[in-house]
């Protein structure tokens, strides 16, 4: 039995009530509600408000914020905090996310449960610091070298920034994986009503501490869900954490093909094989639809207007909004692809980062039409409408 204990939020971190918050502030409140007690960060537009709020809130809640000397340091300080026993996150955008790549791979390799928040902006390089994009989706998935799988969550509103960052922390703890919380500048700086529920209504996963005694416990011995249970430094267990290929004891076996094969396959399989428990999406009018728009984050919200315009003209259009973008809900996408004329995928990148993956999943069952946008703005709903009408032909 996998060692997962659900509990409710620590009331100290929960500001119950109705608030008027932007996405960045809401994400910070969500993290505090989820039990995050350590954040390491470095200022970068458009994400800075998350850690600014964290810095001023955390002394009241009991925890630590450290402003590090750069994103490289931030992305590894949080892993130190996790191995010392806290829930932790870091927050960044564009260039900072690029600098963090090595440590995302390290977190994947050492199975460190943590959350990386990326408030996406336009790139490459410095790009458009104050404007949105969704062009880091592939980087989030595979930006670090080597084979691994992560989970990526994408919110569409400040309320979802609050709600889903809690999911992100929970998923990180359950699967011991770095979870990418992929916001964008629009969602980050959009101010809306955010309802923070009572702490007892917020479900939080505790760390999967081992039941085994020192001596019996192996740090990287997987449970039946392919995820190993954890201990923390100082509990009396022998811990050996390394980015080198390691066996179940955690000891390096960097020249052992069998160990490497087993480890890397498990790192991928723990996400593949548990994907059905990770997927999260929302559907609107997909039953009997001729066209289904599949999108995520801010683009899914903008798409609503394009869909509405098409529906006004009698076109049956549905929406599938991905909340967990990676891993993709492949069976459901295939099921829809079998029934519709085409799938339209608006997203704020020109290389169709998610659309290509959807196309791979659909495998020719129906056309997949990407509606690309270079970012630094959101789609004109007319473009999405036109793509829908084009797809009908």
């Amino acid at each position: 039995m996998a060692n997962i204990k659900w509990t409710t939020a620590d009331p100290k971190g929960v500001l119950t009530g109705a608030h008027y918050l932007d996405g960045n502030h809401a994400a910070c409140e969500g993290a505090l509600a989820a039990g995050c007690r350590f954040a390491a960060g470095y200022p970068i537009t458009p994400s800075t408000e998350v850690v600014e709020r964290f810095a001023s809130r955390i002394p009241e809640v009991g925890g630590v914020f450290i402003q590090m000397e750069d994103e490289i340091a931030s992305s590894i300080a949080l892993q130190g905090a996790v191995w010392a026993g806290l829930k932790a996150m870091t927050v960044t955008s564009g260039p900072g996310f690029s600098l963090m790549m090595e440590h995302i791979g390290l977190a994947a390799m050492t199975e460190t449960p943590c959350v990386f928040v990326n408030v996406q902006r336009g790139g490459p390089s410095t790009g458009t610091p104050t404007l949105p994009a969704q062009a880091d989706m592939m980087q989030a998935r595979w930006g670090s070298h080597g084979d691994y799988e992560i989970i990526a969550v994408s919110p569409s509103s400040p309320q979802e920034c609050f709600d889903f960052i809690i999911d992100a922390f929970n998923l990180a703890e359950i699967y011991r994986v770095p979870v990418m919380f992929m916001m964008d500048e629009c969602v980050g700086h959009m101010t809306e009503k955010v309802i923070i529920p009572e702490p007892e209504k917020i479900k939080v996963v505790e760390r999967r501490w081992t039941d085994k005694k020192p001596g019996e416990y192996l740090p990287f011995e997987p449970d039946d869900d392919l995820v190993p249970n954890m201990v923390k430094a100082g509990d009396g267990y022998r811990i050996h954490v390394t980015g080198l290929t390691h066996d179940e004891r955690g000891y390096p076996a960097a020249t052992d093909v069998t160990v490497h094969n087993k480890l890397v396959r498990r790192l991928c399989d723990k996400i593949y094989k548990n994907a059905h428990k990770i997927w999260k999406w929302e559907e609107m009018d997909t039953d009997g639809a001729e066209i289904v728009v599949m999108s995520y984050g801010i683009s899914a919200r903008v798409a609503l207007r394009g869909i509405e315009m098409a529906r006004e003209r009698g076109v049956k259009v549905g929406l599938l909004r991905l909340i967990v973008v990676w891993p993709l809900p492949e069976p459901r996408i295939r099921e829809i692809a079998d029934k519709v004329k085409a799938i339209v995928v608006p997203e704020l990148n020109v290389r169709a980062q998610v659309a290509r993956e959807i196309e791979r999943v659909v495998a020719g069952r129906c056309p997949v039409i990407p509606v690309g946008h270079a970012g630094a703005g959101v789609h004109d709903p007319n473009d999405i409408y036109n793509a829908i009408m084009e797809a009908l032909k």
Partner: protein
Amino acid sequence: MSEVVRDLKAFAKALVYKNAPKEEYFKRGHRACQGCAPALAIRYILKAAGPNTIVVNATGCMEIISSPFPYTSWGVPWIHVAFENVAAVASGVEAAIKVLKRKGRLDPNKRINIIGLAGDGGTADIGLQALSGMLARNHNVTYICYDNEAYMNTGVQGSSATFTGASTTTTPAGRYSIGQGYWKKNVAEIAASHYVPYVATACPSYPLDLMNKVRKSLEIEGAAYIHVFAPCPTGWGCPSSMAIEVGRLAVETGVYPLYEVERGVWKISYIPPKGLKPIEEYFKTQRRFKHLKKEVVEKIQEKVRAHWERLLMLEKMTNTEEFKEKFVRPFYEVQI
């Protein structure tokens, strides 16, 4: 033992700069806030450097305000690089120019100034590694840090060069914190520890001193580092008309002493003739220190004084014939 020669008359003249070059290479119309001392500092720096200059500029306020598309304030070749790598890019530029000169593609006698420019975040924090590499390799580059003591471009987040006790958005003062909790990182001394030929601190409140130091750094063969203390009225919470005065107070209270380290020999550029002023005079000009209680100010005062005393001792120690005989000559004059 030789006396340190300090020309106070010349320094007094530093408060005016009518003898400075009239040409402007950092042009007006940029988007800096009112009273921006970093922008003023760059104006002086480029006056001193002249037209044969390449500026390598890290991400930061001065990059953003000087280059909003489709305009530029730079009258010299300018390259904006990422946040962490200005010293590395400047190293590359310098090495390439060296090669071009060696191959005769550039006139070997033509003096080309290379200036790396970054803020305190891009220098003390994210850029320190690249800076250290550049100084260790002793590239013929002048690296200038404009220190406004926080990440002003992203909205006043603390850096490791933020002054102790200052409230910023990531070191907010309040019930649990006095603001920035640790001592300001001293990058000038870190640079000096690389034994580069020239390190200096400067402040645009003393324009001639700043310009002279820039000129000197460019004339010296090898890597040079200048730390420019540049008040930011927006981030520090002082009236925009006060930037110059705040800079001057920082020097007069010993919060930010002006000095040079030339081939290992320390020389304080300005010793206030009537002694250091109490730091309260400096602190009370800015909102970011408003929350500080008297006992905290006293502790900071003690550290400021200790730092100043240390500087005096360094000056005394390094300005002896013995030091020059035993360290400077063998170290800087022996070519391996």
